[in-house]
């Protein structure tokens, strides 16, 4: 996988991620009753990430970034299929814990990959380039999704995002190391 392909795959991941997260709040609002539950849902997410980072860090050096990224994308694709079916707060908590794990995979691998790809001297320019494209993808996704939710149900975007994750995982897997 070269840097350009890496940016492509990450852009797709960002797109899928941005499709859900702003609208995910709408779903939480339907399920949860209080801001305290809201706080817990996101707190659990951050807490599981925190616990997972040391393990993931070691794994990245052992298994390589690609395996972890594919695990992340396909794992997320699967977990997203459960989102539309949630109607209890405890279910949201469980999903948040799994999302915390997966999120940690993504964040850590994103950074290790960047570290491995960029040259020290041009790191600023290259990482800037990386962020530009992934942010553009995210922006497009958020705006489009707004329209989609207006026409379809909130449940539909989880299915769409899930498919995008499968595709980006597929792209990552196909690429030569």
């Amino acid at each position, binding site marked *: 996988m070269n840097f350009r392909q890496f940016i492509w795959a990450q852009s797709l991941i960002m797109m899928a991620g941005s499709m859900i997260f702003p609208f995910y709040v709408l779903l939480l609002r339907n399920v949860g009753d209080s801001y305290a539950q809201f706080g817990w849902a996101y707190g659990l997410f951050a807490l599981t990430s925190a616990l997972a980072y040391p393990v993931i860090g070691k794994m990245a050096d052992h298994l390589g970034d690609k395996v972890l990224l*594919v695990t992340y994308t396909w794992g997320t*694709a*699967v977990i997203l299929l459960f989102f*539309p*079916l949630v*109607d209890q707060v405890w279910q949201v908590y469980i999903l948040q814990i799994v999302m915390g794990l997966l999120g940690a995979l993504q964040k850590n691998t994103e950074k290790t990959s960047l570290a491995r790809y960029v040259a020290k001297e041009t790191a600023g320019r290259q990482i800037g380039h990386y962020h530009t494209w992934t942010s553009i993808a995210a922006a497009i996704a958020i705006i489009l999704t707004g329209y989609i939710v207006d026409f379809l*149900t909130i*449940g539909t975007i989880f*299915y769409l995002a899930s498919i995008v994750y499968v595709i980006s995982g597929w792209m990552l897997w196909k690429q030569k190391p």
Partner: protein
Amino acid sequence: MGKRAIISFLIGYSVLFASSAYMYNQHFSRPLANDAGRLLPTEVKSIQQAAGEEQLQKIVREANDTDSKLSIAGMQHSQGGHTYYPNAIMIDMKKYNKILHFDPKKRTITVQSGATWDDIQQRINPYGLAVKVMQSQNIFTVGGSLSVNVHGRDIRYGSLIDTVESFRLLTPEGKIINVSREENKELFPLVIGGYGLFGIILDVTLTLAEDELYETHTRMIDYKEYASYFRKAAGQPQVKMHLARISIAPDSFLREMYVTNWTKAASKHDRTGYSQLKKDRIIAAPKLLLGLSRYSDWGKDKFWELQRMYMERGNGKFETRNNVMRSETAFMEYESSSRTEVLQEYFVPVNQFTDYIDDLREVLQQEEKFNLLNITIRYVEKDEQAVLSYAKADMFALVLLINQGTSTADRRHTETVIRKMIDVTLAHDGSYYLPYYSYPDKRQLHRAYPRSKEFFQMKRKYDPDERFMNFFYEEYGR
């Protein structure tokens, strides 16, 4: 990662995807309908926005073809599932709100039924005209108001039915007919106060009144003097509107009252200086104190005192008729997931008021856990035009605001108290209002509305397939 691993992932994923989508479609994608009482969340087949006459006709005809049930919704402030029904198509009328014709000379206005009182007030206020009869708040749709045959602060024009010239009805067969006191006249008193059971009211022509400048007169009074005080006031033609409150605060429970009369201002005061329509303000102090009174007796006493201050401050104030008919509601909004606020309205003949209050107090003093927050009192003249008429005599109408839990046990408790209160009301030749949750039992309904059996028979005559359905009909009509 081997190819085999990838293929098994893809197969597993596809299976999971299909079953998730299937489950979602089966159980989760049906829209949920609910009304202001928030006690009856219900899955409906779909929610359709009313867009035009032909589209509405098509919805009704298709419902006939597919044997689907229909229900009609406006602002959904009725609280007993009058606007929706399980697995029925809910027709949301709110966007069907054009003003079709306004004739300032004849003082009539024709509006689509999704128009709100506010829409009408905005249009007619510049012409110095006002609505004759409506609720105290102006947020409601005209169609919904007709379906519950509202009354309000006005004491001269009766209930809403008195101000209706004619309307057009989309019948259960999908035909459009004119209904007035001359044309299809059997339907006129059935559809008004008919809770959406006879078809869709498309548009309606209402007669209007002159917008006048009123002077506010407020005072505090003992409940024993109230009936004679009111009779005297009603005897003076310059008194146009009336509203009273009776205390629910423990220190003065069902004894102290604040009364307000609006009288036509002397001609030296000019309406034009006051004619701008007021905007709904959010008032922090009453909102806070109503909040406190939900939880404590102390809060209830303080809230009653605060209302006194507002009342005294309002004394002598000049306001146009249009502005008296657009009062603040925002401070009453209430958000909680485990509790809700429900309304009750009891009608009692003017001459029975004092004894009635004594009996009501006796019932309520034994119910310590019953969280009564507010009672306002209006007057409605005897009016038996509507088949489901609540004004069997000249009546005081007491509107009760009740805070209650949403659990089954809480509902049962509220039901017990409400049934007791209704029995007291019926014992004083009174009746109760129907747009609320189905706490009253069937016997109470038939006693309060002697023509209710006839009403439901006519429903089946005009809608033999029961195309238009709601919880109210299911509970009491079948």
